[in-house]
């Protein structure tokens, strides 16, 4: 196995594109190294992207934020503005693992690991984030919900890496929230995850919303019907009931060691409602 740690994206892309065998990007390694130790993957080339400064920065851009794909959870939390602007996304990223894992784990890795249960991905989807990819054929932008196709299957082509996420500018009275269900309090993988981002008008009516569910289908979902259920409402009882129903209707989960189909569908509705209410409360103050 060869290990490389280039300091530019172009060099990284070149290495990845040129490898005849199995090549893997290494960000925090909290997925990759675990998989290598347990013989799930045995790459011929590992390209460490932590030395590439562009991938390690959070910058303000077009009224929003551009977050490098290799920024760690701990860095997101400590950023001067991000936790206030995107509390739901930051809390989703910060649910990953423990304090030790937080010092390594990145949103780029969380997305590119290709798990339907990744915690920060519904947060990014709800936020309406756009990923910037860099590959041998240059740069392109993709909405985050279009990147993961199926478990371990991504829309990335050979040699392509995720460079950053653009979080859009948002109007006043906007906020977000992320909740996940795990049987324990931490160190567990989401049985269901739900991110909600919304904007209120001065009267408190919801004018825009995005709802995303994780761990209830082969990929994290953007649930447009759930968003429609609350747009134009003040999240009253009827709207929330519709939201719950839409969230449940979108679920196509499996029975596995982490939960049953019935349980996941039930809980998806519950989390959607609870997350929407938290986002609403935050938006009123934002």
């Amino acid at each position, binding site marked *: 196995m060869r290990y490389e740690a280039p300091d530019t994206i172009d060099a990284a892309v070149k290495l990845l594109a040129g490898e005849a065998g199995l090549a893997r990007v290494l960000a925090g390694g909290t997925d990759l190294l675990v998989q290598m130790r347990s013989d799930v993957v045995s790459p011929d080339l590992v390209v460490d992207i932590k030395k590439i400064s562009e991938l390690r920065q959070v910058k303000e851009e077009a009224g929003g934020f551009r977050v490098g794909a290799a920024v760690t959870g701990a860095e997101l939390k400590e950023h001067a503005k991000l936790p206030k602007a995107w509390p739901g996304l930051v809390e989703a990223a910060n649910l990953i693992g423990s304090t030790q894992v937080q010092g390594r784990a990145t949103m780029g890795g969380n997305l590119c690991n290709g798990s339907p249960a990744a915690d920060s991905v519904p947060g990014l989807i709800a936020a309406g984030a756009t990923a910037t990819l860099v590959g041998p054929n240059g740069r392109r932008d993709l909405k985050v919900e279009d990147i993961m196709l199926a478990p371990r299957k991504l829309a990335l082509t050979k040699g392509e890496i995720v460079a950053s996420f653009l979080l859009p500018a948002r109007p006043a009275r906007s906020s977000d929230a992320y909740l996940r269900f795990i049987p*324990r*309090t*931490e*160190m567990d993988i989401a049985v269901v995850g739900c991110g909600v981002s919304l904007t209120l008008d001065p009267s408190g009516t919801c004018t825009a919303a995005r709802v995303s569910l994780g761990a209830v289908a082969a990929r994290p979902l953007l649930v447009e019907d759930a968003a429609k259920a609350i747009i134009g409402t003040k999240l009253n009882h009827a709207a929330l009931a519709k939201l719950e129903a839409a969230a449940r209707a979108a679920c196509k989960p499996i029975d596995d*060691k982490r939960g*049953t189909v019935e*349980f996941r569908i039930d809980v998806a509705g*519950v989390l959607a409602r609870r997350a929407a209410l938290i986002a609403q409360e935050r938006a009123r103050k934002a």
Partner: protein
Amino acid sequence: MQERVKKDPEREFRVVGTRPIRPDGADKVTGRAKFGADFKMAGQLVGKVLRSPHAHARIKGIDVSKAAVLPGVKAIVTRDDFKDQGSEFVPAGEMLVNYRDVVRNVLAREKALFEGHPIAAVAATSEKIAREALRLIKVDYEVLPHVLDAVEAMKPDAPVLHEDMITAGVTPPPTKASNVAKRIEFVMGDIQKGFKDADVIVEREFNTKPVHQGYIEPHAVVASVSEDGSAEVWVTTQGHWIVRAHCARLLGWDISKIRVTASEIGGGFGGKTVVYLEPLALALSKKARKPVKMVMNREEVFRASGPTSGANIWVKIGAKKDGRIVAGEAILKYQAGAFQGSPVQPGCMCAFAPYDLENVKVVGYDVVTNRPKVAAYRAPGGPISEYAVESVVDEIAEQLGLDPIEMRLKNAAKEGTKAAYGPKFGPIGLVEGLEAAKGSPHWNAPLGKNQGRGIAAGFWFNIGGETTVSLQLNEDGTLSLMAGTPDVGGLRASLSMMAAEELGVDVAKVRPIIADTSSLGYNFLTGGSRSTFSSGMATVEAARAMIKEACVRASKLWEIPLDAVTWEDGKVRPAGDNAGKHEAMDLGDIAKIAGKTGGPIVGYSAITAHGAAPSFGVHIADAEVDPETGKTTITRYTVIQDAGKAVHPAYVEGQFQGGAAQGIGWALNEEYIYDDNGRLENPGFLDYRMPVASDLPMIDTIIVEVPNPRHPYGVRGVGETPIVPPMAAIAAAVKRASGVRFFELPMSPPKILAGMKAVKANGGAKATT
């Protein structure tokens, strides 16, 4: 928050009952302590095990030829390297082992009986080469149908694991082999008559899952066999004399040639009372003529070691309107795993032990299944049967409108009660524990929304056994203490304290170690909550022998008769007519004259410790159940238990809290999940959900002290009882929080949510799942 409830005005202790810093503490918090995987030897090889991918398969052939020629491979062992053993049961901890089965568990012979069953072992110069060698070993399997569940395995058409297994304990003996190794029965009084007298009868069926001991430190060993056939072993174990015995037996070597040193142990809970890697490491080392180190990874620990039984339990209890129990009956079916020897017998004996009953019948079945062979796990068998019985007691109390503590007080076993399993209890502390629970702040605190409170009692026997302790008086008056029961929970601190108490010295002057098997007389393993009781008894005896010798030396020095010398307040003093004629001498003074008065002074005790006394516990649990997700949070928890005498209260509390923590996991989330092929799907702590620290509330403790009259300081074992009551206490709390009574463990969120939905669907009618 620590409270104590004492029964008798007791002897005044100077050291016992205080909380000095543990002698092994500094090395543990700095990382200097050596655990199993920390031993290294020059030139050591890496040993790895090839394991069966099938739950049940005949092994038609094992071809190691390709692996053997891989450069770097130094030795390979298979079933052919171990002589077969006849069927013979010997005691090991609180369980029995049969060497016919031990040899087969260490390396499969005719069949692989569970996924993870060792097939071959390789020693190589690197981990990478060892792993590559495993890939090169070709095993010809004939895959067979498998069975995982005890009830399934008892069916007439179930796949049979052992073609020669004829159920014992049934007359006439069956003519056909089955998976039922034995049937046992305990009967007292006449249950028919008892049930006839009952005003209320509740009958329930329960199911529990196997749970792993969950020790953080995986099994690890280094073995080095010399050209002359002598061997050294460093290993993480609860009993190095047992390791020595098993290895000598399986390899056909003299016991004296194997010297075993126990490392610091990162948890055992019963699971480190058996051998897995040790005989393989020795056999590989002998072949390779090099030291061999073997360390399991977490997956191997889950697939091939532990756990305790999963079980199916049926319980029927009849009571009068006033709560007095008139009859109790139970049928227990315990999974043994691949080889017979589940803890169903102690399960049967424990089932009704907390109660003073006239009519009891308990029947147990030991059933083999295609899972790893069960190993002891704190109070083996007890938590399972007592969970079921305590749950039915709770339900009866509810039906009769009685307070669950009052119901138990009405039936509680006391001194003189004849236990259903035979003996009469001596002084015991169940009533004191129930009274302490009743008066505790926890029992009387208000509950919040969606919360419920449950209580349950628990019992464990505790054991004594062969024990040796040596206490050396050093030249400067300090003391070196050698014990042989591995220290799993603060033993060295407690032994130093007992020696210091007896000898009148500062506890810091006593330095204890766990000695190796060639340095000290025989010691049975640490198990059965016996180490503080037995090694403590031997320590006190060794100290008393030293005091006697100190008196002899003083009488020599002073040239006065021995009976004119006494030991008082930590000093030898001239007595009677000679009182005041000579300066009293403490041990430091005696140490200085040891050489010229007869030589080094050693207090020694080699005993079979008798008089172990049971410990009863009472747990109070508060559970909050999220009505929309079924998630249970334990919001408050109190353990009340009789310690006899708490030598080091902090370590007694630690045992209480640890048992409760493990019980919370057992009750709520821990389970083995298998796929259709009998392969374990969650062999790791991510999906085998033991509680993490933030899942637990502060676990409060109340130490009850009803002294054990047969221990010099009144000690009872405390290590196992704490895992007995949690499951029933939590089930009762969940019932009150959710409105639904559950009869299956774990009470994981999907089950609780489904149970609550079913109640709603019934229009709120009382439902059970």
